[in-house]
């Protein structure tokens, strides 16, 4: 009971108490399932509980139902579109009758699976009269991974990240500024010093006015030496400000570029580590925009805007101190507009921030249109849809324009208002200054100095108001960058990876299930593959063959069950360690920009030339490579332009051969080429397959003749296993597939002859 209370923390306490009253003496509660839907599929709470003698359910209206455990009862569950159904069936009367059904969202799935498992055991115990065998090893109900004794939650399953990133996103950038903190501090101190130097000239105008010009105007002779001293002071201050400003700008520009580099490379590195699932859900244009523009924006913000802002604040502080030391009353009049401007900045901040975030998203939409259309240009042209694509681009641009227009309404009124306030501030100083001079409380020099100061003062406020937009833009960029950085790969590296010894290539899949979104793609799949065995995967398209291969490659992680290599769960070894044992040949081979030799050595960059040539020979690629003008040094492009499909495929076979993997996966490796080329490739493949565990998917069943076993899949399940002759004799799924293909071939042949 105590362990139950801890494992079901979401269960309301009142219900636990109520549940306890439902369990009679001599009975014990075994498992509970909290329901979050009722049978009309409305969100409401219910409860199913399993005790040693009965299964009970609390309906939404508070009524309880009870079934005593007896032979013939069975629990079944299935799910569709994110909701699951648990059904209590009765097989005792000959026909299957449904006694009850309960609905819940997949959030409760683990609890449901646990309940079913306990139910099956307990029912068996009740029927046989023997106490249920106590479990020696506890397995996670979802993924069947073994759990440590006393471990309630499976470490593999409970890694979903649901905590939102902090709102103080900008502070997280410190991670990138940290390595340059001393340079940044130097830059900051230089800024401070040069700011100080710019504050000297207005201060000197005060004595220049009061001690030189006004006495001269009042008839005294011109004091040239004093005037010269003040003027050289002005020149000196300007020179110092110039030198300091120069060094500062240089240092900060250096730092800025470095931070930008770090930000981009870190993000890209993280992006490379994310699973295919992430790339499947994101659009290329959006990711390119994030890594390109957004990092740039952040880096400018960090190294320039942020420092400027700090300087501005200091400048205002310093100026205020100087003003107060000269004339407190005049200083108060001067600083009066400051809170108003501060309030305005705050007001506009909110509007601008959301605005900029949305502009970024709309902008990503514009780039997405480009990223969609340019690679698909052949389709666009073939269907003569150029105009439609242009319209689509126009539409995205219109939305961008509309969003910008909306934001500019707020933005455009902002700067002029600051200017207006500056002018009004100056007016206040003039009025108050004249009034004070008239009463003899101040001098012309003081007023001149004040006017010179607040000229600068308000300029700073103006630039501070510009920082509002810079900060907001940087904050939204930061958020979008950290969206990538915070994304935990759904194929995570284990915390303590187990070392993977030299593997033999034995693969076993236990109760494997995989869900893509809310669609269940693979269900309850069990398969053992012996070392060196060749398995042919057969089935209609959409039957889950490619998904199964993706699970074996660990491009995705299983949602249920486990995939093991030599008995080791592939989730417990480092991803790179595991993948170095897997060779993959795809239907559409991808060649990177570079030489043929580089492309062959992609999986093993330190391969010697001899190894590369040997791999190419084995892949039957050597000869055609030599026929190219520059041999192995010939450049191949993005999609391997200039090479035929078969040639590209053989290069990719050489690539797989070179890493000498124990497990080889051929995903429709020969389906994109004609029969002649297929023969060539097939010869290359025969070399590749030798002595390796091979899993081949092929549309043309004839290419799987060499397979030791054929695995026929249908709608995510294995329906038949056996060799060609067995399966033909069984006249099942495979037979029908084969017949259908033979017919098509015959028709094609007839058509060809006619």
């Amino acid at each position, binding site marked *: 009971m105590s362990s139950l209370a801890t494992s079901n923390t979401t269960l309301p306490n009142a219900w636990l108490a109520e549940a306890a009253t439902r369990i009679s003496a001599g009975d014990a509660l075994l498992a509970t399932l909290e329901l979050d839907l009722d049978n009309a599929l409305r*969100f409401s709470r219910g409860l199913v509980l399993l005790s040693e003698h009965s299964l009970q359910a609390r309906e939404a209206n508070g009524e309880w139902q009870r079934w005593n455990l007896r032979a013939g009862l069975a629990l079944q569950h299935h799910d569709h579109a994110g909701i699951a159904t648990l059904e209590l069936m009765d097989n005792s009367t000959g026909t*299957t009758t*449904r006694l009850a059904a309960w609905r819940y969202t997949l959030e409760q799935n683990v609890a449901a699976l646990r309940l079913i498992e306990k139910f099956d055991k307990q029912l068996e115990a009740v029927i046989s009269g023997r106490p249920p065998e106590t479990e020696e090893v506890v397995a996670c109900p979802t993924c069947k991974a073994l759990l440590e004794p006393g471990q309630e939650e499976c470490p593999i399953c409970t890694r979903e990240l649901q905590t939102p990133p902090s709102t103080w996103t900008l502070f997280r950038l410190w991670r990138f500024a940290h390595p340059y903190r001393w340079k940044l501090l130097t830059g900051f101190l230089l800024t401070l010093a040069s700011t100080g130097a710019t504050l000297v000239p207005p201060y000197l105008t005060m004595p220049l006015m009061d001690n030189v010009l006004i006495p001269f105007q009042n008839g005294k002779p011109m004091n040239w030496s004093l005037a010269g001293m003040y003027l050289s002071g002005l020149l000196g201050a300007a020179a110092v400000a110039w030198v300091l400003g120069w060094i500062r700008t240089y240092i900060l520009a250096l730092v800025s570029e470095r931070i930008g580099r770090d930000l981009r490379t870190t993000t890209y590195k993280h992006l490379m580590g994310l699973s295919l699932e992430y790339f499947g859900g994101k659009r290329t244009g959006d990711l390119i925009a994030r890594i390109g523009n957004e990092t740039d924006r952040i880096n400018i913000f960090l190294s320039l805007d942020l420092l400027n802002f700090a300087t501005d604040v200091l400048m205002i502080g310093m100026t205020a101190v100087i003003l107060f030391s000269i004339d407190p009353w005049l200083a108060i009049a001067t600083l009066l507009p400051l809170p108003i401007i501060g309030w305005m900045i705050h007001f506009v901040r909110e509007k601008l921030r959301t605005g900029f975030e*949305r502009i970024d998203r709309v902008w990503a939409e514009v780039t997405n249109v480009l990223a969609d259309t340019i690679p698909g240009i052949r389709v666009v042209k073939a269907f003569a849809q150029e105009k439609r694509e242009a319209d689509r681009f126009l539409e995205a641009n219109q939305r961008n324009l509309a969003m910008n227009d909306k934001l500019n309404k707020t933005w455009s009124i902002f700067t002029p208002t600051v200017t207006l306030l500056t002018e009004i501030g100056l007016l206040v100083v003039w009025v108050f200054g004249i009034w004070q001079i008239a009463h003899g409380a101040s001098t012309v020099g003081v007023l001149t100095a004040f006017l010179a100061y607040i000229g600068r003062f308000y300029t700073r406020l103006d630039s501070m108001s510009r920082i509002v937009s810079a900060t907001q833009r940087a904050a939204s960029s930061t958020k979008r960058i950290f969206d990538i950085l915070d994304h935990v790969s759904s194929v995570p590296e284990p915390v303590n990876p187990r070392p993977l010894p030299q593997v033999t290539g034995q693969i076993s899949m236990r109760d494997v299930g995989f869900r893509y979104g809310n669609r269940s793609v693979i269900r309850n799949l069990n398969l053992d593959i012996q070392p060196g065995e060749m398995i042919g995967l057969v089935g209609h398209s959409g039957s889950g063959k490619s998904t199964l291969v993706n699970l074996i490659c660990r491009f995705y992680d299983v949602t249920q069950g486990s995939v093991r290599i030599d008995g080791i769960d592939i989730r417990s070894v480092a991803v790179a360690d595991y993948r170095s044992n897997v060779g993959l040949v795809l239907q559409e081979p991808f060649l990177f920009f570079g030489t043929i030799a580089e492309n062959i050595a992609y999986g093993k960059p330190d391969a010697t030339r001899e190894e590369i040539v040997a791999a190419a020979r084995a892949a039957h690629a050597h000869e055609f490579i030599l026929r190219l003008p520059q041999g192995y040094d010939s450049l191949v492009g993005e999609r391997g332009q200039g090479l035929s499909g078969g040639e590209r495929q053989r290069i990719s076979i050489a690539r797989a051969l070179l890493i000498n993997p124990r497990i080889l996966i051929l995903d429709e490796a020969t389906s994109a080429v004609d029969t002649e080329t297929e023969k060539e490739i097939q010869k290359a493949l025969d070399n590749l397959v030798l002595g390796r565990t091979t899993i081949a998917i092929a549309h043309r069943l004839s290419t799987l003749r060499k397979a030791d076993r054929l695995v026929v899949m249908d709608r995510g399940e294995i329906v038949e296993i056996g060799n060609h002759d067995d399966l033909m004799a069984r006249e099942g799924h495979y037979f029908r597939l084969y017949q259908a293909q033979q017919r098509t071939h015959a028709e094609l042949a007839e058509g060809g002859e006619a």
Partner: protein
Amino acid sequence: MSRFALTRNPAGRLICTLADGTVHANVTPVRAFPLAAPDEGLALMSQEGHEIAWIENLADLDAANRGVIEDELAGREFMPEIRRIAEVSSFATPSTWQIETSRGNTALVLKGEEDIRRLPDNGLLIADNHGILYLIRDRKALDRHSRKILERFL
């Protein structure tokens, strides 16, 4: 017009008897355009995933068959309509939303903005972390508070 007859067996599964007398067990009705035209184009799928019958329009069926299909669909289809967004945990994703829906109040976890799909006529389709789809028929028709929250994610 009765090309088939639908009944339910004691196990709660649909049984479809075609006009030629063939009987299919465990039949599931599927909408072809669940969003764009829910009542047009329904297929009855066999357990093996093959189409048994095609229904142009739900209204063409006789009352008995339609009743069974609607009943079955009601038990399978789950797309709560969001009436109001009460609160969100953050404007950065993943974010937990407290919502009022046509099927009662609940919370959903939005994994990323890309899980919000735009539909014609200001509609939105929001997928939560468990793959449940929530529908907003017209976001302009939501109350001001919900609209403001929603704007931040679009």
